[in-house]
């Protein structure tokens, strides 16, 4: 399967969101988009032009945006809130907790510019804790798609799903290598069958994991690569089946290793099948300004780091 993964283009995942919400808006007139002064960054222009009456500009007031979204949901609307990931989560945690999650409102919290690949703006904007914050909320679904096509598919899928959702995507232009139709909300996506090691990845790092798997294949290591785009609810059966087969795992995410995808995988392993696990992610640190690719290298989130982590975890297996 590795040899059938093909790069069909390059685009930012946020554009997948913009194109996805436009289609969701055409499909269902209950879809409403809100933004906190970041309509351009979230690629909402087409939606705004086609559905001006269903676009709400809230200004730089994220707490108010979350509350308004909850109120719109009460009236039967499907509100999508849009801003950067940092302002979508950490800034408004209690608003999401009380007015959305605890109140079980059908609000879609859509967050761009997540993680280190936000780049030059630096650590104030590079949230690396948002997956953890959101997955801890009871009833919250957490989705981290890996490329343009998958972000578009995920945006359309969550519009049809009833319940609060956190959708995380990003800023940089990134390879497009999945098909829209391959995305199924809540189902792990097998990118490659393998037998030596399970690699679980989400978001931008799925592509890095593909690159790593190809290098490892040449070295004679068979990688089972699984894209966990839906971190919560986790496809526990897929994780269990894979680690049962391979006996070790590496997790890859553009997020703190405390509280992210890796923790979710480790919890499944600890409960069902303790195996050695290595984590690719930021290690209890803030980010900094820099070019996205340079930051991935500096913080140990690049292809070579995944290769090294696989080799290390396989040593531990023996």
């Amino acid at each position, binding site marked *: 399967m590795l040899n059938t993964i093909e790069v069909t283009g390059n685009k930012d995942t946020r554009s997948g969101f913009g194109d996805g919400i436009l289609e969701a808006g055409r499909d269902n007139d209950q879809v409403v988009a809100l933004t906190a002064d970041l309509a351009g960054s979230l690629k909402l222009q087409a939606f705004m032009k086609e559905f001006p009456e269903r676009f709400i500009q809230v200004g730089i007031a994220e707490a108010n945006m979350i509350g308004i979204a*909850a109120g719109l949901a009460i*009236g039967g609307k499907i509100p999508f809130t849009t801003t950067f990931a940092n302002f979508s989560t950490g800034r408004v945690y209690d608003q999401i907790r009380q007015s959305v999650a605890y*109140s079980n409102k059908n609000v879609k919290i859509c967050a761009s510019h997540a993680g280190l690949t936000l780049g030059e703006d630096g650590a104030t904007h590079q949230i690396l804790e948002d997956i953890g914050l959101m997955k801890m909320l009871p009833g919250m679904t957490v989705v981290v798609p890996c490329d343009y096509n998958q972000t578009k598919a995920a945006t359309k899928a969550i519009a049809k799903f009833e319940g609060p959702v956190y959708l995380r995507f990003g800023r940089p232009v990134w390879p497009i290598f999945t098909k829209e139709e391959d995305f199924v909300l809540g189902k792990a996506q097998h990118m490659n069958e393998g037998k030596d090691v399970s690699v679980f990845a989400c978001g931008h790092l799925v592509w890095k994991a593909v690159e790593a798997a190809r290098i490892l294949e040449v070295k004679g290591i068979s990688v089972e690569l699984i894209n966990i785009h839906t971190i919560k609810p986790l496809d526990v059966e897929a994780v269990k089946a894979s680690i049962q087969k391979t006996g070790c795992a590496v997790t890859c995410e553009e997020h703190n290793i405390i509280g992210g995808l890796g923790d979710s995988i480790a919890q499944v392993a600890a409960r069902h099948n303790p195996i050695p696990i290595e984590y690719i992610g930021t290690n209890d640190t803030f980010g900094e300004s820099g070019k996205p690719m340079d930051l991935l290298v500096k913080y140990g989130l690049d292809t070579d780091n995944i290769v090294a982590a696989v080799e290390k975890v396989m040593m531990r297996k023996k």
Partner: protein
Amino acid sequence: MDNLKDIASQIRRDIVRMVHGVQSGHPGGSLGCTEFLTALYFNILEHNPDFKMEGIGEDLFFLSNGHISPVFYSALARSGYFPIQELSTFRKINSRLQGHPTTHENLPGVRVASGSLGQGMSVAIGAALAKKLNNDSKLVFSLHGDGELDEGQNWEAIMFAGAKGVDNLISTIDWNGQQIDGPTKKVMDLKNLPAKFEAFGWEVTEMEGNDMDAVVAGLTKAKSLTGKGKPIVILMKTIMGKGVDFMEGTHEWHGIAPNDEQLKNALAQLPETMGDY
């Protein structure tokens, strides 16, 4: 009007009995807002106690200062949303009547959780916008504490509603001048509150909140001001603890329960008009 006053007396009995029954809860603000909730649920709101979350074609009410849940629960039960006997479960384990209102236990009449302060006006605005999108001409009402206005989210919401002309929203501020740590003037002086709302583009009215005639008149007037391009705020002067003499006018009874003797004393001041639960 006599009927509304009788209902208010019963609701006040419910409040002190509920809080006494579990030895916790917030009687002060509940008693101060009893006329308001009574007038709203028994006279002003066009609502359907056969509860539906979306509330299409109905007026909606949002309680932002969720700690005054006793008066909210009593008004809901007494107007038919759920059995009045359920008031006895207030704040107890396995109850739908949580300390602060929530949708989580599916209590009819509650549309959003509140308690963590400052969030209700945003939610009310969202519900009001949904009504506009749905071509639903009914109104959205909300209630907020004056101390609650310390929370910055309110001012985001107040700015939004004024700027965007959310004119199907009537927000009421319980202007009792008290909060947990003392008078609002000492804790965080609200200064010129009417001028603040006016500056944000609201239609501002004032109302004596413990005079039933004034409350009905004030809410009726507020309704007549809707649909004219501005949100409406009612600055409602109330006395915290109103109706129970030893609780009146002090923040001391914000969040404590009466003991057996105090309950007896309180109930002696409040005629039982509809039958206790």
